[in-house]
């Protein structure tokens, strides 16, 4: 959280959001959470607050819908949990491509998607985009290495490119569609390789080039059922898990051997 550029009037809200996000981690699953609205100029909610990764999970879509109190533009920013990422560049050494230079980014959202009702540059100025980290060029990734700006830009765009290839960063802006003047909705797609954790879905109402209202809704992506049990087992009791894997494999091999005896 490096948002040092909040205007004075938003300070209290920031504190609130920190406190509320903390409390929410436990009790997100149910109910609507019109949590951080300080003025009811914009209200938004998701069709689901939990993305359950089951054994048959192949990606899913969540619908965000909401309403405004009048004309204005809406931007939706979905941000996954921030984690460190290492970007490596291969170089040709003695004819072979080997990992040489690497840069570590400390604050990389595991997922990032933006949706708006019309192209961003048509209704909002650059400083506002930067302040709210709207759009890939304005995303703060927290590079750790001190590098020449053009070098750093290279690594930065490589990171974004790799994330886009994995389907975790939006290649284009998503579309927010208005139904009438006040009602809006957009679909947010989460691919099968979506990382688990607590996601933030921010809905921003923009008038005259500035954000006048914002609402943050949490979204949990979590493994459930059989795949969750396997994951926990592997994490919590690695040795027993390994033993079980070996015994299972021996049994399966034996069974197959016995079954094919007369073939």
């Amino acid at each position, binding site marked *: 959280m490096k948002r040092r550029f909040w205007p004075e009037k938003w300070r209290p809200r920031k504190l609130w959001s920190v406190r509320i996000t903390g409390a929410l981690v436990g009790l997100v699953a149910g109910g609507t959470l019109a949590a951080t609205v300080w003025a009811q100029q914009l209200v938004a909610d998701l069709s689901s607050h939990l993305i359950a990764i089951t054994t*048959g999970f192949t990606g899913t879509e969540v619908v965000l819908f909401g309403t405004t109190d009048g004309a204005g533009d809406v931007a939706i920013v979905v941000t996954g949990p921030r984690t460190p990422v290492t970007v490596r560049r291969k170089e040709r050494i003695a004819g072979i491509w080997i990992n040489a230079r690497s840069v570590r980014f400390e604050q990389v959202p595991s997922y990032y998607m933006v949706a708006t009702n019309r192209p961003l540059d048509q209704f909002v100025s650059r400083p506002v985009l930067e302040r709210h980290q709207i759009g890939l060029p304005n995303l703060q990734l927290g590079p750790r290495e001190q590098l020449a700006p053009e070098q750093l830009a290279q690594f930065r765009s*490589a990171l974004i490119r790799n994330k886009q290839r994995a389907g975790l960063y939006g290649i284009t802006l998503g579309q927010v569609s208005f139904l009438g003047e006040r009602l809006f909705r957009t679909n947010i797609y989460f691919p099968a390789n979506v990382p688990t954790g607590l996601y933030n879905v921010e809905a921003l109402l923009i008038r005259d080039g500035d954000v006048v209202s914002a609402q943050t809704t949490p979204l949990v992506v979590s493994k459930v059922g059989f795949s969750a049990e396997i994951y926990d087992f592997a994490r919590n009791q690695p040795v027993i*898990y390994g033993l079980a894997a*070996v015994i299972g494999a*021996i049994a399966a091999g034996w069974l197959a051997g016995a079954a*094919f005896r007369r073939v």
Partner: protein
Amino acid sequence: MQVYLPIAEMSVNALLVLGMGGLVGFLSGMFGVGGGFLMTPLLIFIGVPPAVAVSTQANQLVAASVSGVLAHWRRGNVDVKLGIVMLLGGMVGTVVGVWIFALLQRIGQIDIAITLAYVFFLGTIGAMMLVESSRALIRRRAPTAKRGKLHRHIWLHGLPLKMRFQRSKLYISALLPAGIGAVGGMLVAIMGIGGGFMLVPAMIYLLNMPTGLVAGTSLFQIIFTTAMATLLQAATNQTVDVMLALLLLVGGVIGAQFGTKAGGKLRGEQARLLLASLVVAVALKLAFDLVAEPNDVFTISTRML
């Protein structure tokens, strides 16, 4: 049909993975090699993280080797005594291999080291087998050619600790099979493969073992080295995906049964020639990947090494 893999954290087509398992299992049953050297690159190719591919592969190989050994066992094609001697060497090799793996990780070039090891081992052994087996085939076609000596005495046969292996009709130093086993164990730990492609020719050319016994005996000792590798990987890296292993082994054990039968119909030299071509092809592909300019010279990783 898509299935989510809980450890690899990705969704794969179950039929595709089953088919891959079946194909590799068939080859493994036919040649008596584990097939890991084929499966690991295949898994990485469909997007499984290399660490998960290597560890899960070890788990799958346990099942494939067990069912493979059963088929050989019924035909009396396993030399248990020789297998156990190899296994003792294999245990030492696995521990040494894990140590080398950790060292390479500290230096930060584990990926390139693994690929280079693949190219080196597969390339050398594949080329040697290719030359030898095609020569054997040519010799068989020309009956006038002189027959080679039955037994050539080289310095390897002068080593101490001689043991008698009745099943294989061998009287050799125990250090020889143990040493071969040790190299095999090292390969399991570093490259995540059973090491059959290396054990089989070593047993044929260095030990002069009867070809019929080679496949069964090498599979017998691979069961234990891969089981140990699975356990070590699960305990230290938590990269064994049982869901992926299950898919691979269902395909693998079925394929292995048919492979064993098909292998029985092949002549020794033909089987070796086929295996050699396969090994050389994989080595060339990996070598090409090392030299060719990658699509994107940048890669990202969230896992901490």
